[in-house]
């Protein structure tokens, strides 16, 4: 009986059937991630719109707290913190939150002011499935900083 996989076989004794199966496998590998990439692109679009030609650095100034595993995607807690003195001439203006595999990537935009005291906000969000949550902060000096956090979702939060 022929083995189904390619295990223990060299390219020479690969049969026609094996070769076809192998090729089909390659096609599946290349085709499958495409919908995910498409969703990430829209999240990227949102981020690009937000930074408007600027560049967001993963500088460590933004901290994004999310659970590692969310059992219920309908209500996933999120806290974002940005390291800033929050004075009149050095503060965090806005923080964009996006989820890269939601049907629509936008989650919220927080607008801070020097009166905020500290640049920190918490809320609860819906996540359709396992994905990255990204926070991008715009500082009063015009620089952008970002942080990314992966959340594993057991039950998606988009309803029927």
């Amino acid at each position, binding site marked *: 009986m022929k083995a189904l996989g390619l295990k223990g076989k060299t390219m020479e004794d690969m049969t026609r059937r094996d070769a076809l199966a192998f090729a089909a496998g390659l096609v599946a590998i290349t085709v499958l991630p495409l919908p995910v990439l498409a969703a990430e692109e829209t999240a990227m679009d949102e981020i690009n719109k937000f930074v408007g030609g600027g560049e967001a650095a993963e500088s460590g100034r933004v901290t994004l707290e999310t659970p590692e595993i969310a059992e219920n995607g*309908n209500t996933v807690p999120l806290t974002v913190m940005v390291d800033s003195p929050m004075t009149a001439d050095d503060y965090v203006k806005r923080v964009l939150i996006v989820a890269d595999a939601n049907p629509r990537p936008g989650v919220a935009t*927080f*607008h801070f*002011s020097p009166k905020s005291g500290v640049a920190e906000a*918490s*809320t609860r969000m*819906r996540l359709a499935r396992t994905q990255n949550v990204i926070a991008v902060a715009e500082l009063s000096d015009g620089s952008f900083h970002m942080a990314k956090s992966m959340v594993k979702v057991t039950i998606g939060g988009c309803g029927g």
Partner: protein
Amino acid sequence: MAKSKPRVKAPKKADKGEVIAIKTLISHKMESGQRKDKKGDLIPRQIINRFTAKFNGESVFEVDIEPAISANPYLQFNMRVEEAGEFEFIWEDDDGSVYTKKQKLDVT
């Protein structure tokens, strides 16, 4: 739907210079516009799309809210206390309704 009820948890008294935490919640279904009813028709979106927190008329914290925010939207943020005065919290609904809540703050 039932009328949305806003709730706020913020200190009534604080020291000058202190940074206080403010927690808000409003009862709202936050219909995302992604769900379908039993007949397969899309249920139209209806969410709270904006939240504003003001103190003595000046903006402290604002949020643009998307449908990805959970039902009964919860928001926690901070304010550095400089003077006594009054908070005003405003929630704006897609249907044009505006819900507000006011709360006083004393400085000790």
